[in-house]
């Protein structure tokens, strides 16, 4: 098991290096320089020239890349132009919000999707199956931002059950009430995300269970005289969860990247909203840092998926 994980991590190292190189070169390819906007427009061009030289911006690109990487390892991603704050601190405060939102959404998604998929597959071709199928098609075909806008309108404005902006109430007392307020703020976007993000898990699970039901090893189990209930418990369910488990890693990081819609509609101060704002303000340091983080998150997602898979599936362990 550990061998598999270790090998997987080793493979990740060159991936990260290539990713960082790409991100760095793309950032370099962007027009403009970091100083023109922040110094007096009437100042001497020679002074700007001096600043560029001082900051090593005339060095060859590999020298600059090396410096950037060294800074990266010191946790120094530069300053945001928009917020005049170190990028690390800025992203750090936003990341916590996004992670909580993604976690709750993931948990709720599986809570809705697993029973639905099992139920549909058990009653394949019958009424419950058709209802679940229609449900997944409908939720899949409605654009998610439409769902968010309608959801926020019904539950936020008309019914007034949930807050519509922010991540925490300004008047909440520190401690437990603050945590409660945080939860209260992510509840609506998470529920909406989970209700409308079930299609992958439900359809995967449904088709896996249906395949497993007809598989030879289930027939073997039947010929052993194992009751149907236990066949589902011991043979079908676990085997059908394999692709879902493999998918879990991706889906968690996918949610971290994909929260841009949710955070924009709910004005929720997470990484997605920060990303959109930074693009609007051409806040290059933040954009570069976020692109790098999103890239690494995706790599981590595949790593996580592979680790989960090697835990549940003995066939891909290296002995």
């Amino acid at each position, binding site marked *: 098991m550990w061998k598999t994980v270790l090998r997987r991590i080793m493979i990740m190292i060159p991936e990260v290096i290539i990713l960082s190189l790409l991100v760095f070169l793309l950032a370099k390819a962007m027009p403009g320089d970091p100083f023109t906007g922040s110094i007096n427009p009437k100042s001497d061009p020679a002074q700007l020239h001096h600043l560029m030289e001082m900051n090593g911006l005339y060095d060859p690109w590999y020298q600059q890349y090396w410096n950037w990487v060294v800074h990266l390892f010191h946790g120094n991603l530069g300053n945001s132009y928009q917020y005049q704050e170190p990028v690390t601190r800025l992203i750090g405060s936003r990341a916590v919000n996004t992670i909580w939102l993604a976690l709750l959404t993931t948990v709720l998604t599986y809570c809705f999707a697993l029973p639905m998929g099992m139920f549909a597959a058990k009653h394949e071709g019958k009424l419950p199956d058709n209802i679940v199928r229609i449900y997944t098609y409908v939720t899949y075909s409605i654009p998610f931002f439409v769902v968010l806008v309608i959801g926020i309108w019904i539950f936020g404005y008309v019914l007034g059950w949930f807050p519509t902006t922010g991540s925490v109430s300004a008047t909440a007392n520190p401690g437990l009430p603050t945590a409660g307020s945080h939860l209260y703020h992510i509840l609506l976007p998470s529920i909406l995300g989970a209700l409308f993000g079930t299609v992958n898990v439900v359809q995967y699970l449904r088709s896996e269970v249906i395949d497993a039901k007809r598989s030879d090893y289930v*027939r073997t189990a039947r010929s052993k*005289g*194992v*009751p149907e209930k236990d066949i589902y418990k011991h043979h079908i369910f676990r085997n059908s969860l394999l692709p879902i488990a493999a998918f879990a890693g991706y889906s968690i990081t996918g949610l971290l990247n994909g929260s841009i819609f949710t955070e924009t509609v709910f004005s929720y101060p997470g990484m997605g909203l920060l990303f959109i704002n930074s693009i609007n303000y051409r806040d290059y340091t933040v954009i570069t840092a976020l692109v790098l983080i999103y890239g690494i998150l995706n790599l981590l997602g595949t790593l996580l998926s592979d680790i989960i898979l090697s835990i549940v599936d*003995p066939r891909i362990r290296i002995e």
Partner: protein
Amino acid sequence: METTSDFLNIKDVNTAFKINGKYYDAISHINLTVHHDEILAIVGESGCGKSTLATTIMGLHDPSETKISGEIDFEGTNLLKLDEAGYNKFRGAKIGMIFQDPLSALNPLKRIEDQISEVMTYHTKLTAEQKHDRVLELLKEVGIVDPKRTAHQFPHQLSGGMRQRVIIAIAIACKPDLIIADEPTTALDVTIQAQILDVLRKIQSENHAGIILITHDLGVVAETADRVAVMYAGQIVEEGSVEQIFNTPKHPYTRSLLRSMPQRDNQNDDLYVIQGNVPSLQKMSKIGDRFAPRIPWVKPEEHEENPTMHEIEPGHEVRCTCYKNFSFPDQVGSVKA
């Protein structure tokens, strides 16, 4: 042979599958008996209903997609009258089944030990420790060299032959009276085939079990079986002892099958080929001899209108009367004279 009582009586069994809302017979009017200490081989080409018969006996068909009639009398119980829970008392305990494809018949996520002991969990009161010992004993019995190691392994770590041995171990774990082996050697190479057949024979003589051996390999039949039932298009067309079937085959289909086997003393380059195809379920004619379209040179009046089984000598039965004057077209002259 101490007991020759027939303990499995299949009487007039039909199994029909639902295709586009209509039922079509996959096997029709099957009558068979199996005795203790005997290997009954069922032979026939692909699609003739051999495996359907096996899964019908095991009750492995989805009742919403199949219609089964007739009677399967097993040690005094009509299996077809049982509900799911009742059937589960027989499956695994009194009837064991060995499947065709050892590569897919084992659960890929469970250790061999768990897969073998599972059958004992439902049919015996053994403790975990006793089950563990029994698993090792079984693995040894089916010829696994290092039972301890194998018990701890997963199916993908074993070869095809070893997996088939594991499946046999599962089938015999509770010492069943009847073992149904559905093409147990088809997926294996010839040397392993012989070993697997040896294992089957050994188990049979130890447990006094009856074995139904389903195969399309006539070599395996000649080597292993005591009695043979030849199936064509869902019907039994000839039944008899191995000697009767191989030495004095009667039915045109049996004769065609035997003739299409490569033989050492036959210097002909061409093998005999049976004309045409097995009809699909939907196209199967309800009346007349089902094999008639494939021996078109036989005149219609030589077939029975509704072919039945005729006993021609004790234990040797053949369907239809067309066998009486049957000869192959290239041999017409020599036989008629």
